[in-house]
């Protein structure tokens, strides 16, 4: 939709490769993966699986966020507050001064904490409901805890479309700004690692017990991770009031459901193709204008093949430089779109392209090789970021250098 432009003026992140944008960038520059043994989540699978776990326990997160324990804050909420704190400081906005909304995303909400005491809570003979923990299972709990912490109240929403959740949160926020409902939209997602999700993906048999290898011939599944990340979107008029200098522009986006299969992408990459194509069109750009694609690249057999086919259909022989950053963070599910939005924006600011770790040989059907070493001598003007999920939910976002 033409018309109003939407800019990013703040961002914050916490993931297995760091607390805060700068720490994260150091890891990305140094090819330092955050995937390793599982220490915090209480799961039997820790003897078999690795994950992108944030090695900050909840009591340290409480300190980091300064949350007063007058109510129960799940790990999901605390990660969210930790990430958003940084974004809010960066944009220096007071949510009460203009129409400000919070569009959050999560796939399992407060499951991280609820799964530890669920059976006790549903047992009629016990009484425990410490600080209102019983209300923390759903997805809205973390959104309201985070919104209340930062006093955001003009518009509140939570989105759950599996792995594309926070990409959808970002595009919903942008549309709320364009339609005049909001001046500022705080968008992103948070997902803590849970025994529930680890077992879920394990039951689907698409977890690689070794570090994941996106776009590799011998890829064998994903590694899960946990993260929270947020971006702050401001309209052009709002920028004049806030006097913020944009970090980048959100120049295009598209949500497209391919209606193919409950959990698998279509083999011809139709959904991915349309999401990317229309995102680029919306920005008034040509495929050749794309400098870098931060692909969804989960390293599952299906996703990478289907996404790769979509890349070839859209870009032909001239597929832009691309990489999956999931070997750094693991697949952080609802947070992934926002995590990779932060990476994309940093890529534009620093003019760097991240390595796709663990890649050795291309998928024969594709013959496509991602970037395997950090690139520092490329011009990066437009970065496309893909998030594809269960239920055929595909979303692409396009970030452009602010000029």
């Amino acid at each position: 939709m033409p018309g109003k432009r939407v800019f990013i003026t703040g961002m914050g992140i916490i993931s297995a490769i760091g607390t805060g944008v700068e720490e994260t960038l150091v890891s990305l520059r140094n090819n330092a993966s955050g995937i390793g043994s599982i220490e915090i989540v209480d799961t039997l699978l820790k003897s078999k699986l690795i994950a992108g776990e944030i090695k900050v326990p909840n009591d340290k997160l409480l300190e980091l966020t300064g949350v007063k324990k007058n109510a129960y804050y799940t790990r999901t909420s605390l990660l969210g507050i930790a990430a958003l704190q940084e974004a809010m400081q960066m944009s220096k906005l007071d949510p009460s001064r203009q129409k400000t909304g919070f569009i959050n995303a999560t796939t399992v909400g407060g499951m991280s904490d609820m799964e530890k005491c669920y059976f006790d809570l549903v047992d009629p003979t016990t009484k425990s409901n410490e600080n209102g923990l019983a209300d923390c299972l759903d997805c809205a709990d973390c959104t309201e805890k985070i919104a209340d912490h930062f006093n955001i109240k003009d518009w509140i929403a939570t989105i759950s479309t599996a792995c594309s959740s926070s990409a959808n949160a970002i595009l919903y926020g942008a549309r709320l700004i364009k339609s005049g409902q909001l001046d500022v939209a705080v968008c992103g997602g948070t997902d803590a690692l849970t025994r529930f999700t680890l077992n879920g993906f394990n039951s689907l048999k698409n977890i690689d017990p070794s570090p994941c290898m996106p776009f590799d011939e011998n890829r064998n599944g994903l590694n899960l991770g946990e993260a929270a990340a947020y971006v702050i979107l401001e309209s052009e008029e709002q920028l004049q009031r806030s006097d913020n200098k944009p970090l980048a522009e959100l120049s295009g986006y598209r949500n497209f459901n391919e209606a193919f299969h409950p959990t698998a992408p279509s083999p011809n990459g139709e959904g991915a193709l349309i999401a990317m194509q229309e995102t680029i069109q919306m920005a008034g750009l040509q495929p050749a204008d794309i400098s870098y694609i931060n692909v969804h690249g989960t390293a599952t057999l299906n996703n990478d093949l289907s996404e790769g086919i979509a890349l070839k259909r859209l870009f032909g022989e001239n597929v832009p430089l691309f990489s999956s950053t999931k070997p750094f963070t693991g697949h952080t599910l609802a947070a992934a779109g926002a995590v990779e939005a932060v990476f994309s924006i940093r890529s534009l600011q620093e003019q760097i392209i991240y390595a796709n770790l663990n890649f050795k040989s291309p998928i024969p059907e594709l013959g496509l090789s991602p970037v395997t070493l950090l690139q520092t001598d490329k011009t990066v003007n437009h970065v496309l970021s893909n998030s594809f999920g269960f239920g055929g939910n595909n979303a692409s976002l396009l970030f452009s250098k602010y000029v």
Partner: protein
Amino acid sequence: MAETTPAFYLVNMFNPVYITSARAICAQDTFSNNNLPEEIKVFEQNILNYHEPDYKQYFTIMQLRRMTRIIKIGLVTAIEALKDAKLEHPQAIITGTAKGSMTDTEKFLHDIVDFNEGTLNPTAFIQSTYNALNGLIALHHNANGYNSTYVHRGFSLENSLMDAIMLFEENRIENALIGCFEEMTAEHYELKKKMGYWKNEAMKNINLLDSSTAGTIAGEGTFFLTLNKNAENAIATLSGLRMLYNADEALVKITFKNFLAEHNLSLDEVDAVFLSYNGNIETRHFEDAISQQLSPSTNQLAFKHLCGEFDTAAGFALWAATKVLQHQTIHPSLIFKKGTSSTLKNVVIYNQYNGKEHAFYLLEKQ
């Protein structure tokens, strides 16, 4: 809590959108005739469970075996809403649910423990994802296009509608399927019981509105409607929607007044108002605050004694409001306080969930 009135108000006006069909499955038999039944079902206990339809005409036995309860109910409701609107492939499917398939979330939690994190059947995990139903409707109707799921308690349906309204304004779509769904399970009932959410005493649903105790009664419901950009074949018009987060009674009151003013309506012109009374004396001051300012001409309606309380119960009011406008009659079971108005043109819904999420809707006769 908001103690003071903010310096500005969100005025989210939009071009009216047209409701072309509306379907409901809930504790009452609202499905067979797509209206409230002549005789309202009385529940002796505090859980108002679904009056489930006959699934056999929709699915094979093999399909039924694979589908969980809320997915079956959701699919059937969506199928009929689309059929009523003669819409084969909706251009957008947007759903709202606070809890998704509780049955599957619980089953997978149990499986993890029962099978010692061994080899688990992934079906429950897949169906526990909040957008599972949405994806299945898209598959069933071969509907590729915009697709999203909002999971925010008493704002789930409202955000779904706002998303669609914006898609219309962006000229992206001509029609959309919007819905909300919720179920109640024994374990979830227990969980909320620990939060003091329910009435301690057994309460007949038909006596709920006279209750003088704290807490409410549980319900479940699934509602789907089709929206169209054009007025043709519409059964009602949705011309206003407003969400209000974490507001106090004073702000609710002011927002209601402003909401009417923005739509150039005087209190006398409001023919009916759905109020979200759920029998909880601790939160009824919100509904009272609206009720007390209404004109004697306005019919005051209630609905949670029919469907019970759940996060997306506003869906019941939205469905019932379209029936009021379409058939130009108010089902007697809805009447809380009869008004003198002889017309049924403008209908407002006020819903609050847990005192935290407040929503106003304005519907008009087509």
